[in-house]
């Protein structure tokens, strides 16, 4: 159990493309555990990517099952190593916030249907389809692995930005 401090911008690690995981060793397993613990400790957080806890590797965890937007359509806890988007379609705008960019939110357009491939912690390769809010969350976390923040993807200016102290 280790809840790690969230790295916030302007830490340069958030703007770097992360390296792929070469071998799933104890260090990677520990990293995944830390990511899950950190996600559960965040206020209403539905995902954390490795660079957000200071590790520049292509690993992220997602769980939208407890969120009101995702509770009826999800795959539970996803532990994703070297995730790749194979196909995407659809589109919807949601107002996103990010633990690494506190006190700020913005409207971002994301695909609503994804086909994905990633490696599980046991080494097996999984392909699956995600949709709706889960697909949005996956794209947000995978953006972190490529050094993108939601600020790079803001879709509307006029009504697109809003600051809040906290949000669920």
């Amino acid at each position, binding site marked *: 159990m280790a809840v790690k401090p969230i790295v916030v911008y302007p830490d340069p690690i958030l703007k770097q493309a992360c390296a792929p995981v070469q071998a799933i060793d104890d260090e990677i397993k520990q990293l995944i555990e830390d990511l899950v613990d950190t996600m559960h400790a*965040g*206020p*209403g*957080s*539905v*995902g954390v990517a490795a660079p957000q806890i200071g590790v520049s590797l292509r690993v992220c965890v997602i769980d939208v099952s407890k*969120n009101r*937007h995702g509770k009826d359509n999800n795959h539970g806890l996803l532990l994703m190593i070297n995730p790749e988007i194979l196909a995407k379609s659809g589109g919807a705008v*949601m*107002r*996103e*916030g*990010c*633990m690494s960019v506190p*006190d700020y*939110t913005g409207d971002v357009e994301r695909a609503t249907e994804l086909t994905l491939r990633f490696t599980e912690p046991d080494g097996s390769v999984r392909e699956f389809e995600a949709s709706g*809010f889960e697909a*949005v*969350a996956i794209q*947000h*976390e995978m953006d972190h692995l490529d050094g993108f923040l*939601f600020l790079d993807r803001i879709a509307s200016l*006029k*009504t697109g930005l*809003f*600051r*809040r*102290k*906290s*949000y*669920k």
Partner: protein
Amino acid sequence: MNLCRKPNLAHFAVTIIGKDRTGIVADTSEVLYKLGCNVEDSSCTMLGGEFAMILIVSHEKPFSKKKLEEEFAAKTVGTGLSAFVRTLKDDEVCYQGPEGELCLISVYGSDKPGIVYRITRELADRGVSITDLNTKLIGKPTEPVYVLVLEAALPQGLSVEDASALLEKLKKELSVEISVRLITPVSL
């Protein structure tokens, strides 16, 4: 970082408006930069043929409102731009984020007097706090259509459905379409 008053800084609200042309933002920010002011928060947009800027600026104390006014007066003379400066009190500077759900409300229909007033009065009377609002007159001159889009923070205990029901009677009264939807940010 939330905009919050630091005791060593004086804060001012600055409003600039004038016929649109290129360079209004550059000219305004040049005045502020040369004076050593920080733009702490701002919103600037086109309104009809005008360009309007609203800014919260700060400067290390001691610094007077008069200094800002003089520099803007010198810069805007003969340009058609008008500048207004107001000193902010301590309790005006700290940003208080709303706690309730955030929603987007669209209202549109044939233009008539009272659309903004009736909608916003109804919201105000129920403790709904408007955080952003835009209106536009669109359509043909013979058939003008009014569009009002606003963002609002609902008070605790008022749901999006409640807000929608609240405005339902105004649909008929004003002959407008009204839709309310949740845009509370998702934490990712």
